């Protein structure tokens, strides 16, 4: 059963169309991540679902109820903001209970819910403190707690981890995942960080220019991106793109390079003769003996080596174009060295050069 349905939603700021006839259905208990670069409309969409922005057209349903015209408090949502948005003059306890006090919830019920949220988030010892006396991670926990006490079905997260340092971010990421496992609520999570999206999501909606480009499981989005934008946005380091054309049936030709795409699953049959881009993920490229076993392999000269600790990024040229590959850190690859590299075209992606669509 669907928990949140967005139907033909449009939102204009004056003449600027931020969202255009957007449709989205989110299952009960699903963790959906809205992913995209700044200005793609992902936060706007979340604000529309929360009721903080009035929509220009379309409808929003939460738990089967049309909430398009309802106030945020009546929609059955809790929201966590990037800047935490804790009320600075209230204690942690005051922050957690504010919504319940406004709603006139009985005192013992408030105490019970605050205690439960504090227990889940392990902030019991902080209840009497002011937000100013908390660290970034603790503040974000309190912000999540504020959504938790509302006892709602849908949680909305607006880039909740973006203000934290890298270490805290990965810790809280795991905690949010744990929270979702425990509560089984529907969660909608906005981020521009693809790692957060990949690790947390049941499904990811990749957005660009107010349009959902692809809505699918993280694995599917990673291995079969629907267009060039999604392919380049997901994955770090990002995918290699080689400009070329399809010739002789299923062969990809670029410069002096010919790659047989026999193993590749084309989305449509009429691809011969088209100008295309061949996308290969750096982590799918093998070197040395492993490369020789790949359906396609070739010698390449190493240009630059970027050691990253866990592995090493090696830049070479293929058919006159830059090409990166990820190798084990133990492999001592040096600048100027010639290495054998290879990849499996079945795991690659082919995009139309003009439209950027997957072929």
């Amino acid at each position, binding site marked *: 059963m669907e928990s949140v349905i967005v139907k033909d939603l449009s939102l204009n700021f004056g003449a600027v169309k931020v969202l255009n006839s957007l449709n989205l259905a989110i299952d009960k208990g699903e963790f959906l991540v809205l992913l995209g670069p700044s200005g793609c409309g992902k936060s706007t969409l979340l604000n529309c679902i929360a009721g*903080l922005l009035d929509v220009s057209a379309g409808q929003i349903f939460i738990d089967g109820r049309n909430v398009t015209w309802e*106030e*945020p*408090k009546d929609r059955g949502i809790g929201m966590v903001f990037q800047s935490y*948005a804790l*009320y600075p003059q209230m204690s942690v306890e005051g922050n957690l209970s*504010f*919504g319940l006090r*406004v709603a006139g919830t009985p005192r013992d019920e408030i105490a019970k819910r605050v205690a439960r949220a504090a227990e889940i988030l392990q902030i019991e010892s902080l209840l009497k403190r002011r937000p100013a006396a908390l660290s970034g991670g603790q503040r974000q926990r309190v912000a999540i707690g*504020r959504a938790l006490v509302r006892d709602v079905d849908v949680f909305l997260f607006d880039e909740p981890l973006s203000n934290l340092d890298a270490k805290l971010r990965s810790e809280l990421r795991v905690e949010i995942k744990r929270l979702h496992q425990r509560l089984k609520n529907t969660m909608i999570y906005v981020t521009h960080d693809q790692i957060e999206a990949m690790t947390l999501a049941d499904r990811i909606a990749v957005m660009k220019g107010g349009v959902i480009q692809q809505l699918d499981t993280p694995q599917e989005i990673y291995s079969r991106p629907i267009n060039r934008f999604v392919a380049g946005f997901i994955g770090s380091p990002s995918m290699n793109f080689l400009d070329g054309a399809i010739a002789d049936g299923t062969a990809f030709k670029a410069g002096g390079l010919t790659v047989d795409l026999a193993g590749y699953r084309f989305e449509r049959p009429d691809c011969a003769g088209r100008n295309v881009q061949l996308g290969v993920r750096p982590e799918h490229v093998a070197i040395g003996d492993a490369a020789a076993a790949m359906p396609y392999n070739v010698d390449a000269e190493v240009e630059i080596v970027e050691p990253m600790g866990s592995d090493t990024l090696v830049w070479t040229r293929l058919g006159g174009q830059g090409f990166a590959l990820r190798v084990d850190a133990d492999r001592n690859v040096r600048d100027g060295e010639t290495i054998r590299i290879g990849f499996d075209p079945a795991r690659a992606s082919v995009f139309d050069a003009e439209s950027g669509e997957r072929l």
Partner: protein
Amino acid sequence: MDDTVLNHAGALDTSGPSGPRPRRTITRRNVFLYGTLLVIAVYYLLPLYVMVVTSLKGMPEIRMGNIFAPPVEITFEPWVKAWAEACTGLNCDGLSRGFWNSVRITVPSVILSIAIASVNGYALANWRFKGAEAFFTILIFGAFIPYQVMLYPIVILLREMGLYGSLWGLVIVHCIFGMPILTLLFRNYFSSLPEELFKAGRVDGAGFWGIYLRIMVPMSLPIFVVALIIQVTGIWNDFLFGVVYTRPDTYPMTVQLNNIVNSVQGVKEYNVNMAATLLTGLVPLAIYFLSGKFFVRGIAAGAVKG
């Protein structure tokens, strides 16, 4: 590791400068700077000194003409006379009447104008209703209309409302004329608060007044103090509206001061005049001294931005 550091140190000449750089206090720059500041301070403090000294002298001493000399015989007679006995028109009960009139004008004017302006500013900053921009533009335009243009129309308005000559009429006038600048002040301050706080308040179910009273106001003490200072000093020091919109028995302190000092009959009692002036200036001075810290902080926090 430690060894290599020490070895390096051994090879270096470490007898040179070490630690904080010494600062000389008497430099040409400092002499000029503090000299200038001193001269300016004296320039501004001298009149105050003359006032205080003169107000503590008796008339015979003043007639000797040494205005800078400290009093030979300190007397508080002029202060008592200025407060309780000086004559303005028919009344001879000194400034005390004007003082209480000023209090009765200032307190409601300040409370009312700040209450209205802060809600105005909050609505303009956070609830962008239709026509908010136009409303704001018109309001700010009001700040540029010279008072003189409005004096007589307002006399007629107050007369028609039956408030002309009463303290409440003057209170309303002060509220209206304080509105543009105060609204601007509050709007800019509320705009500088994070918008997500406001959103969080809405998700938590607080309405227009709930968010204003329970989230915004408790966070905005500095800007309320700034508004308080601006309004108290402005309204207390006002002379024009006071003289136009009140009657002699409701004159504020400033108008009464003018009547005492500028009376053309009899001997000019300089000591009484000085004491009366100091008494009138005491309230704004006290406000500045008590809240100067907040004033700077609030101006820095809200008024300049936006």
